[in-house]
């Protein structure tokens, strides 16, 4: 079997815009799940609302496409009622961090045994490009026409602070690293959070001089810096160029887990 066998082919083609990064992240996730040797019967994909959250609809397993922001609460019930099920959650920055922010921090705190893959495109894609809690300062969106004035969330740091056992961040450019990080998340007992920065040429790029999908991927590539490298530069008093986003593994630890397989 390959990860392609997990796709629900009779539902394709998908609804994603041309150039969207979500397909890459779904491929990486299914590749990681397939490499775990899990059966389709024991694996459940859960999601909330938004572009990212349509992913379970394209996967041939049991799937729960729920209400906006609530995926982690639904997933907690699925996992605790039957710990034999392997639970993977797809979510986006608006779904997870705005309306679902409270569920996010509490799922991290409980350290429920599941893996969350967040496709962070800095924008509300499905509703047409409104600002989200991760929209960078001064970025344009349909609800920040003069540039975003609020400080954005760093979702990975938030997950570390709230108590997740495993946290990593990569982008849709870093296919191998992202796949490996998701695989590590699946292997790690407890709450695993993998943030995948993705290009959204339609909702984000066209308002922010990144109209072509490749422009935005190039931006993610050139503004990535390995977390350890950034920390070393800071330790050594070197100046880290502004706008660089740290990538890699933020935490891997062994706090007490809720809902581990009995």
């Amino acid at each position, binding site marked *: 079997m390959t990860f392609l066998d997990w796709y629900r082919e009779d539902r394709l083609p998908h609804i994603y815009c041309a150039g969207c990064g979500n397909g890459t992240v779904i491929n990486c996730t299914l590749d990681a799940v397939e490499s775990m040797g899990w059966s389709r019967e024991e694996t459940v994909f859960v999601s909330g609302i938004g572009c990212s959250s349509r992913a379970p609809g394209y996967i041939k397993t049991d799937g729960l496409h*729920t209400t906006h922001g*609530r995926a982690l609460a639904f997933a907690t*019930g699925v996992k605790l009622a039957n710990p034999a099920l392997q639970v993977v959650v797809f979510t986006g920055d608006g779904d997870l961090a705005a309306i679902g922010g409270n569920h996010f921090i509490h799922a991290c705190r409980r350290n429920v045994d599941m893996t969350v893959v967040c496709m962070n495109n800095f924008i509300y894609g499905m509703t047409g490009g409104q600002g989200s809690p991760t929209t960078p300062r001064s970025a344009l969106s349909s609800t920040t026409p003069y540039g975003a004035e609020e400080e954005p969330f760093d979702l990975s740091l938030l997950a570390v602070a709230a108590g997740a056992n495993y946290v990593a961040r990569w982008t849709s450019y870093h296919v191998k690293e992202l796949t490996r990080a998701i695989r590590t998340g699946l292997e790690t007992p407890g709450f695993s959070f993998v943030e995948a920065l993705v290009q959204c040429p339609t909702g984000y790029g066209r308002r922010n001089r990144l109209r072509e999908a490749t422009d935005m991927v190039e931006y993610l590539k050139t503004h990535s810096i390995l977390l350890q490298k950034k920390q070393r530069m800071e330790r050594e008093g070197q100046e880290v160029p502004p706008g660089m986003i740290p990538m890699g593994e933020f935490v891997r630890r062994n706090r007490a887990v809720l809902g581990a397989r009995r």
Partner: protein
Amino acid sequence: MTRTEFMQGNVACAEGALAAGCRFFGGYPITPSTEIAEHMAARLPGRQGTFIQMEDEIASIAAVIGASWSGVRAMTATSGPGFSLMMENIGYAAMTETPCVIVNVQRGGPSTGQPTLAAQGDMLQCRFGSHGDYSIIALAPASVQEMFELTAKAFNLADRYRVPVFLMADEIVGHMRERIVIPDRVEIAERRPLEAGALPFQGGADGVPGFPAFGRGHAVHVTGLTHDERGYPRTNHPKIHEALVTRLVRKVEDARREIADYDAVNPDAEIVFVSYGAPARTVQQVLHDAGDGGIGHLRLKTVWPFPEFALREFRNARTFLVPEMNLGQISREIERHVDQAVVSIPKIGGELHTPGELARAAEGAR
């Protein structure tokens, strides 16, 4: 073995759930329902069940729905403000045909209102609170015994019709203590599993699909979007939406005779009380005091779907008197179904109608 105990209503509710095989409780503390959560927290771990105190009521009902799809009987308990928070996901449960039990021990509202005093102000919210068209089942206990029995029954109805079922209690029945007979076992009607080859959202003759629990290889896609019989989103097809939503309503409404549970006392009477929940106790006292069979009483244990045919059992009725701890929510429903006079006897503020008040109302209707 059947045993007799002296018990609080909320505890009896939890015991009824456990007897019915409930193995998951997700909840958030709120007066006056909290004893249900506390009792489940104490009792579920010893029965290989899961208790989890979620971060809010939205998360509580979400976790309950998730647990139900994992194949276990699951419930939550709350009161007015928490019930309002649950509404979005209650609609999701109706749309996705998820069996679950939601207990609302009602308190005075709107808003935070009267946390420690009784009301029946959420009767229409439970029927119509979420957006769109759908139908649900709601039961109303009038005693500690019924807190036990109707909770257990709620699980059977939820599984039978793949629908959220509400136990619409009130602070009085939740906190009263009285004698209760606990049977050695309660009837458990198991969920009908999805048959091989059947579609997960295809109704069949009774409109109710078998249940495709997770982990059994059904590869079912569950979505709150308008979906076809396979569960696939089909949001731009008027006919598919109409067929789905019509079935969700009809599978409950068409079964209302089968679902209905009520007591009809003195069916020849001309003056007839219609009641549910705690006010039914006062009506029973009025009938007892009158002692002549001249006053009838329709006591509803099922409020939704509304058993309008039960009103017609009172062939000689001239007036229906409807005491409720709200400003007339179910009396309006009764008006829709009968030609006779319907007199609402509202009482809000937290106190129950007194026998004298209702006796005077009956006298005034003669």
